[in-house]
């Protein structure tokens, strides 16, 4: 059992009003509700505002390189499938620099969760367009405005038959907490794309902008209906559905890999040279 206080970390260096602060709060609430203790979780993060997340709570932490949360997380899970592994990334981190890993993590379907703090902009590097920035947004680097379509991570994940795909909004903390729980509880890869205002650099997709649009999906939506999920995923305009968009029941990699399936985590399996020495004989 844990309490909110157990998850107090460094003082956040985020701007006042930043959506990250609300995400952090939802996260701590989810942890406490789930009864997870700090040492029972490994958070892997990238570089960006979102990447600072684990320092602002308490957990085992690997704050790695920009864009590389997923390879690190997946390897940790392969080595220790007894641990909960959460990857925390920015939209630039996960869909820009790390886009290739995202594609292939969706395929591997290891039981890890990724929170993408999607502020539709590069925050830490001061406001350039990210892969999810709206068409037309003018920045110092995009003087004519963004001239192409944003990437829709939710639709992409559904297309790739992801294990679990959800969209949240930092401003709806209660729903967000539930989505975090559901994502962490899902057996397999879970993507939670969290829309989050960047009060400093994103003057288009503001808190109000999201608030007006974000709309929890109705109970009638069946997340196992891939086509319905895909249609819902494509909605990103006057209405943005939040909630669990898609869920599939694919087996996870750790369940299929004979070395670890139904076994102790690899890190707990004993090693002795005597077990492998006979391999030398093949060369005589």
């Amino acid at each position, binding site marked *: 059992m844990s309490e909110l206080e157990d998850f107090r970390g460094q003082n956040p260096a985020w701007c006042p009003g930043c959506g990250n602060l609300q995400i952090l709060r939802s996260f701590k609430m989810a942890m406490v509700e789930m009864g997870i203790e700090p040492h029972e979780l490994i958070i892997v993060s990238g570089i960006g505002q979102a990447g600072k997340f684990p*320092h602002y709570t308490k957990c085992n932490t*690997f*704050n*790695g390189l920009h864009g590389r949360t997923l*390879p690190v997380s997946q390897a940790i899970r392969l080595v220790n499938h007894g641990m909960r592994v959460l990857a925390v990334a920015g939209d630039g981190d996960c869909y820009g620099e790390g886009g290739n890993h995202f594609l292939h993590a969706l395929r591997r379907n290891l039981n890890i969760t990724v929170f993408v703090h999607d502020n539709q902009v590069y925050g830490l590097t001061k406001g350039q367009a990210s892969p999810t920035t709206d068409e037309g947004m003018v920045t110092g680097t995009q003087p004519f405005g963004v001239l192409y379509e944003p990437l829709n991570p939710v639709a992409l994940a559904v297309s790739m038959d992801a294990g679990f795909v959800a969209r949240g909004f930092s401003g709806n903390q209660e729903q967000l907490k539930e989505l975090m729980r559901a994502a962490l509880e899902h057996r397999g890869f879970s993507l939670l794309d969290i829309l989050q205002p960047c009060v400093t650099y994103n003057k288009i997709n503001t808190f109000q902008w999201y608030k007006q649009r974000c709309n929890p999906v109705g109970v009638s939506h069946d997340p196992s209906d891939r086509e319905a999920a895909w249609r819902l995923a494509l909605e990103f305009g006057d209405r943005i559905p939040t909630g669990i968009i898609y869920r599939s029941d694919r087996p996870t990699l750790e369940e299929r890999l004979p070395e670890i399936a139904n076994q102790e985590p690899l890190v707990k399996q004993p090693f002795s*040279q005597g077990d492998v020495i006979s391999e*030398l004989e093949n060369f005589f």
Partner: protein
Amino acid sequence: MDYTIRIGGQAGQGLQTIGAVLAKLFTRAGFHVFTHQDYMSRIRGGHNYYQVRLSDRPVSSSRSLVDILVSLDKTTVEEHRDELNAGGMIVYDSETIRQKYEGENFLDVPSRQIAMDTAGNRLMENTVAVGAVLGMLGMSLEILEALLNEVFARKGHEVVEQNIAAASAGAQFARENCSQCAFSVPEPRSAEAGATPAGGGAPGRMLLDGTNAVGLGALLSGCRFYTAYPMTPSTGILNFMAAQSKKHSLVVEQAEDEIAAINMAIGASYAGVRSMTGTAGGGFALMVEGVSLAGMTETPVVIYVGQRPAPATGLPTRTEQADLLYVLHAAHGEFPKIIMAPGSPGQAFHLTGKAFDLAEKYQVPAFIISDQYLADSEWSLDGLDAEKIPYHDYRLRAGDLAKLDSYKRHAYTDSGVSPLAEPGASRHLVVTDSDEHDEEGHLIEDALTRRLMVEKRLLKKMPLIREEISPPLYYGAENPEVVVVGWGSTYGVIKEAVDIMGDSSSIAMLHFSEIFPFPDPEKSDFLEVLGKAKSTVCVENNATSQFAQLVRAETGFVFDRHLNKFDGRPFMLEELLDYLGDAGRNDV
């Protein structure tokens, strides 16, 4: 006795099988064997060869001239007919290659026909060729039969018998039709002939290439996670480890790219197991940022870099030693690194073990630099000494952690080495960061912590690691007039040249296989040896003498001469002898 057999043909014709079988049986017969391969970056066709050298004295290099040229196609005849030793023979099948050659150097073995006649299967023509070679050498087929039994056992008795019949017929044909064959091979040393394989460390005849040597070294070092993106000449290690994962508790994962590979290897190590990745120079380029991550987070990781001619894609299946300074200086910022450059399969085995041990002991990335030549070359050995692979788990596990009141992943210590704990194994949190961080692992920006961390991570550890580095290997005459220096895969050819020239001249080799931290000149006398020599030569398979540059940067020493080869091919023994001024000797 010192014979070279070159088997040439197109990719897909099975020349590798012929070569491998010959090499293995010569080894079992108690000979000293050395093989190397020359192949194109294509799957079918083209021109490739596999070269096997057998001798009753130790050999560790390839020679330019051949004694038996097994030609599976016309191109092989055309390309190599002028590369025969006196008395050398060209074996071919005029039916298969649709060309008849006259001359007493040619032996036309109707392999296809014999295969049909004896086994009813033209696919056995390669077995006929193996038999023919043994026939020409006047060797018995006993060991071959045992080998065929092992190889084809799974396919059933009949296949084994067909192969043996085909081989016998080939041998018989050669004995009967090669009156001009003047090869003479001593009887196999009885103790070893057909001897059953012996376990690690025990004497016996072993045939091993650089790739499998590294794989075995990793396996015995407790490597539990291997990940890579395929790339010649490193893919062999991936395949070796994948095969091991069917038998041992070890996870092998093909990554979507090299960036994923290095980050996965680091993630796995953070989680608590020994991990490794491998690639070639081009793929390593994509790992460079990850190397820096290992440096900053002090995460042990072993990285194998198989060199091949570059820049860019270069010559994908050939050899070069041009990535030394690149690997040495790879990645932004300053942090300790360990670089091993083995010169033989034996060294590859032991140095892989040392790389794993030091990587974990000092929590740094350790490299094994090899190249296509060493990766693919097979050496016969008496065995491997597995005792030389240290295995000590330096990590804090649940039991150790339970005893601690507090834990800081990057705590300042006298040695600079902080305690490395398994995350999740206790209530202590294991926190690390690619940003500069404090003792706990949390990100900081202040000047003082930064300075202390650089001191801890780099300045304190570096001298300790240097202490672990062995001096270069000295081999040859005392007080030599000529010192030949090499690093990595040129070991074998230099050693043999020194053996040969040592009879008539005062010559020695200095071979560097533990390259970085650079061996301390105070710990051995290599600088004096160099200083006193009349002539010093640095032999490198590259164009810019990278090792010589490193030696100058580290010690100030400047070589008199440089021998560089950068056409994608390894040094042949004769080439080196020629260069060293001993071209006259033919009795090598």
